């Protein structure tokens, strides 16, 4: 009963929008219906079957999963490596590294993307000049455009991983680490056999967070590849949903994509938690 007020607020803020999302996805609901030009009609699973029979959707889904996966792995690798580094360096470099990371974290995604794009600009960018690449365009090729966006995503999301993992490492009793070091364990061995098991709950949280963030990436793709790249080669699900829902005013189809994304993320999270619980860990 004490939970009632919190539940009401949560329900209002969470359940209602999701309910609306689900509801709209079962109707024919475009601008014409919203503004009353045409009656709203119930389509059942019509929007979903339209979506699933669209080959572009599957293609976008595949590239989203691969891209998000690559982002999560790179973010975690960079974040954890720098967290370990933080524990090994002196106070001043640590402060500098922290500040730099926080700066990257605090930069709005739109600004960050625009700056990255400028750095890699074929005509004016410093990167091409330093590397001597002439007027090579980074956003023309599919993989190179995805790679460029990946760099930006990693840059703006590694600080969260780094700070969280660093805090976690600090909480590990130093005797344990000393004992491992005395036993002659290498840095990598300590990380793999001592820190990883002890930090598992923290790593779980940052992994799930990163999966959710990177699966839903929008701004970076939208800004850096100009709304999905050449001939839509760099579309990810969220940008695709935006194109369908808002640019084309097909709100119901956009909602259907939203529901599919929601279910997928939920499934990933549940499976992951389940696996952890099997291993006898409690969050």
């Amino acid at each position, binding site marked *: 009963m004490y939970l009632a007020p919190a539940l009401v607020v949560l329900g209002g803020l969470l359940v209602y929008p999701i*309910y*609306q999302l689900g*509801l*709209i996805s079962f*109707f024919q*609901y475009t*601008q*014409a*219906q*919203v*503004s*009353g*030009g*045409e009656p*709203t009609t*119930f389509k059942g699973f019509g929007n979903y079957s339209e979506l699933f029979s669209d080959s572009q959707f599957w293609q976008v889904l595949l590239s989203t999963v691969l891209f998000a996966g690559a982002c999560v792995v790179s973010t975690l690798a960079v974040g954890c490596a720098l967290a370990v580094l933080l524990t090994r360096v002196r106070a001043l470099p640590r402060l500098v590294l922290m500040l730099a990371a926080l700066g990257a974290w605090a930069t709005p995604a739109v600004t960050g993307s625009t700056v990255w794009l400028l750095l890699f600009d*074929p*005509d004016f960018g410093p990167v091409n000049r330093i590397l001597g690449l002439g*007027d*090579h*365009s980074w*956003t*023309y090729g599919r993989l190179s455009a995805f790679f460029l966006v990946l760099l930006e995503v990693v840059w703006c999301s590694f600080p969260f991983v780094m700070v969280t993992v660093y805090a976690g490492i600090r909480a590990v009793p130093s005797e344990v680490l000393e004992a491992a070091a005395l036993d002659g364990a290498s840095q990598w061995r300590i990380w793999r056999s001592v820190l990883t098991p002890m930090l598992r709950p923290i790593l779980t949280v940052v992994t799930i967070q990163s999966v959710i963030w990177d699966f839903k990436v929008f701004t970076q793709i939208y800004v850096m590849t*100009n*709304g*999905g790249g*050449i*001939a*839509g*080669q760099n579309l990810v699900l969220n940008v695709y949903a935006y*194109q*369908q829902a808002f*640019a*084309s*005013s*097909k709100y119901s189809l956009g909602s259907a994509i939203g529901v599919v994304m929601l279910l997928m993320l939920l499934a990933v999270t549940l499976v992951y938690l389940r696996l952890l619980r099997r291993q006898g860990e409690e969050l």
Partner: protein
Amino acid sequence: MKLAPRFAVLLAAAAVAAGCAPQTSDNSSSDKDDKSGTLRVWLFQEVGNDPKAKVVDSVVTAFEKAHKGTKVDVEYIPIDTRAQRVKAAFNDPKSAPDVMEYGNTDTAGYVKDGGLLDVTKEFGAWSEAKDTDPTAKQSVTVDGKTYGSPFYVGVRALYYRTDVFKDLGLQPPKSMAELAATARKIHKAKSDLYGLVVGGAYTYGAMPFVWANGGELATAKGGSGGSYTSAIDSAAAQKGIKAYTSLFTSDNCPAAKCAVMGGNDTITAFAAGKAGMAIGGDFSHTAVEAGKVKGKYAVVPLPGVASGSVAPAFAGGNNIGVLKSTSHRTLAVDLMEQLTSKATQASMFDAMGFLPTFTDVRGAAAAKVPFEKPFVQTLAAGTKFVPASPGWSEIDSSLVLPTMLQEVISGKKSVAAASGDAAKKMNSAFSSAG
């Protein structure tokens, strides 16, 4: 399962709630026709809006004087966010304007959304309407009914660098084949310049190539339904697509840089002195004047396939219409006519350089300003308009044509395959839009 009872409750709640559909607005036409009160007008906020506002103010003052007890409230809305504003206005008639300016490619979409008032009778009875040029008339017409009055037209032609042409001893091209050859000559002699700067996302720069080769975007199906079938994959259209996409090569405009460009990017490149030629509109004049190439360029109509002919251009521009939800029907229609009258369009041309939609007014305007001559010539040679189907908005916003062009340019698909796919997407948009 601990979760089960809670889940059941949720399901039950959902079942109860499923009876209601998502919200819609009751945007039925208002039956009221008040003869006094406040009229709200939305016009686009242009870059350097003051001269426009001055012309509008004088029209409004005269209108308020002629109609006792009326007040006109003009608001200039930013062009970037107009789509959201207009959607919001359709969704909530209470906050909607009575009269509004809109881009002419949006006509059919807005009609389907139920936002615009049918003014066929009034427009037909208006003495000035008979001089409206046919393409402009077409841009306010859906299924034979008129939904507004044309405000100005915009059309594109070929900008070229007079200094570069003189250096290399070139003449402005007279045919499309010459255009491509000239472009390559420029790039060969001056490798830091694009010959003719083209963009893979520049639909209205590419369409003249399709039209000049005898292709069409879509053809109207017979009957009154006003339904369309895509013709972008016809042999003639494919020839045009090939002609345009073959300009994206390292000897003119390298695909790696030009495939992503839109219309504005090409104008920016030309204005910055990075191109020998560009396809730009009369409305790009200010941007080019503000650039490095001021005083070093001229304009000719974009040449067609036969030597000396003009490629059909896309007739862009804006219209002014009355919203269905207005409660001042007579007054609003009258104000629409005043804002788009011959006198207003003539002074709007002097103030902003907007090309008039009346053929006689436009002729007089062109005689005064030599810069406008090639554009008026292009208009006189015959222009084309996009299909008057609500499906067009969807085709436009889901980037069907840029995607097709980029697929060909980047070598992902052949012209036949890319245009076939585009035609499929266009047809599904046309049919779902009804």
